[in-house]
């Protein structure tokens, strides 16, 4: 977190508030930290319930050092809460951490969402790692989403095992993995193994396969995957066929590449740029 972030965010927030809302927010920064924390909690009682709106130029450029950080779909309260968190004094470190921990410990659902979405902006980002990995285990959908989807924190700070858990749980929860920030950048071999096991299990259970997940196999696909891919080509689901074709197309394995020869129409549409992974993205 740097000073610029606060300035950018303050300007952005105040553009959306009424005069009295702005005054309420500003007053809270002038008192003690307990008032600030209570304001974080009480925000919905003093701010309008509207969703924030902004033009596409700002989208993804709101925080200069975190390109892509999104506030899409946020409410004014959500944004104000993140802003209030950034007003908590950062020194001394122990106090800052204790105060934010207290907010986590006492938070309800919407507050948790605000807290987790603020993680990449908060000071001392490593201090929140165990909370963040715990949130991935949450069985409350909103909490899980707040850490897992459209949040740069996991990509930046999660160790590989926690990252892989996040991706797998997103798949299990039937949520769109392409909303995971940094998905392609953090592909890894271990994850590819888990994905291929998962696909085998789904086959065995006679269940459908979310075709998107095959993107996680590349570039780790190998000969062992050929039987899985052959089965997917034989599927009645067009998405499964298309995903199999994309894996083969991206593979460096001659054996996998050769599977595509039986499906020239798919190969052609990939070559023409008509078929890519984004065509398989669905929400959810």
């Amino acid at each position, binding site marked *: 977190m740097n000073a610029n972030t606060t300035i950018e965010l303050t300007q952005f927030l105040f553009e959306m508030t009424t005069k009295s809302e702005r005054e309420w927010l500003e007053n809270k920064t002038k008192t003690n930290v307990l008032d600030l924390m209570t304001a974080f909690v009480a925000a919905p009682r003093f701010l309008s319930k509207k969703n924030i709106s902004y033009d596409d130029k700002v989208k993804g450029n709101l925080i200069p050092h975190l390109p892509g950080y999104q506030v899409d779909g946020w409410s004014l309260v959500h944004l104000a809460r993140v802003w209030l968190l950034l007003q908590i004094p950062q020194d001394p470190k122990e106090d800052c951490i204790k105060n934010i921990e207290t907010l986590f410990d*006492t938070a309800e659902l919407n507050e948790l969402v605000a807290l987790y979405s603020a993680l990449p902006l908060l000071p001392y980002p490593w201090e929140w790692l165990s909370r963040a990995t715990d949130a991935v285990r949450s069985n409350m959908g909103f909490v899980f989403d707040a850490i897992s989807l459209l949040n740069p924190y996991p990509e930046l700070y999660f160790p590989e095992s926690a990252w892989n858990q996040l991706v797998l749980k997103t798949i299990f929860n039937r949520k769109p993995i392409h909303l995971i920030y940094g998905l392609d950048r953090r592909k890894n071999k271990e994850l590819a193994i888990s994905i291929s096991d998962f696909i085998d299990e789904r086959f065995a259970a006679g269940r459908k396969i979310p075709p998107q997940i095959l993107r996680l196999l590349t570039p780790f696909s190998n000969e062992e995957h050929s039987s899985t891919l052959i089965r997917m080509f034989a599927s009645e689901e067009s998405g499964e066929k298309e995903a199999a074709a994309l894996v083969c197309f991206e593979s460096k394995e001659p054996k996998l590449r050769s599977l595509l020869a039986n499906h020239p129409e798919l190969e052609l549409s990939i070559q023409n740029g008509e078929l890519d992974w984004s065509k398989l993205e669905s929400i*959810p």
Partner: protein
Amino acid sequence: MCQNPNEPKKNPSHFESIEHSEDTPTHRDLLWEDYENLIQGMRFFDPHIHMVSRTTDDYQMMAKAGIVAIIEPAFWVGQPRTGLSSFKDYYSSLVGWERFRSSQFGIKHYCTMGLNSREANNERLAEEVMEILPLFAFKEGVVGIGEIGFDDQTVLEEKYYRLQLELAKKAKLPVQIHTPHRDKKRGTERSMSIAIEHGLDPSWVVVDHNNEETVKSVLDQGFWAAFTIYPFTKMGNERMVSVVEKYGPERIMINSSADWGISDPLAIPKTAALMMQRGIPKDVIRMVTYQNAIDAFAKSGQIDVKDFDLEFSPDPNAKFHGNSVLRGGQQPVINKNSLFIQ
């Protein structure tokens, strides 16, 4: 509350008056088929129920019976908490997990926050709880400070009752008063006079667990009078019908206070059915089983009845809109009659 563990037959509810537990329950004998038609299309609001000690089956039955919203007051979980963390976790469950669980069945969940009278007697812990209580009192969906008041009517109970009345004023929240089982009449009067002494408007105060002895004074002084329909206790719902016949529906509301005791989360729909049978007009029933509770607690600014109308769908895809976070993680309602477990 288990006053006397040697009397297992007595019902251990926090409402119960052990000395008067010989009443025959009436509404518990009603089967869904018996009253389903009587309450068809009616909607109910239970302003006092402890879902933290109820099962998911209860939620399903409640939704089916027309309960669209509930208030869960913070109270006694049956054994004393030993540290601040247990309070934090309990309060968090009221605004977090329990609200989420309720939403899975299309029931809007609110709560009231407070330090209960029994635990007010542990001064060291009570002090700590009072420090974090504001962080909970101001939360979304917190519709009051409750349930607070007296149990043994000790000095410490009075101290924390007064402090919490002040918090209610500061947070602009209604107050939900738990009246004691022993020495009820005096405890009720004392609760009301202290509330007035602190400058609370009686129309912001719900006095709970009334009976025939207390109702008149509560209404005369301008407070809301809530009645708990709890099996084996003094207030069965046949007598509830008589109270409504005698005092009318003004400022009277009914709740189940269902908790970890032998209690009935369907007490309200069953009582409504009984009232229908006895020929009480439908608009009167609606007031005491729905509207009055809303009017009393909506002063918190936290109740929007439009929320009750939101189309409930267990389909996790249905609520996704735009680019906002997914309203996911929702579990479909399982068909229990199906032989197949999918």
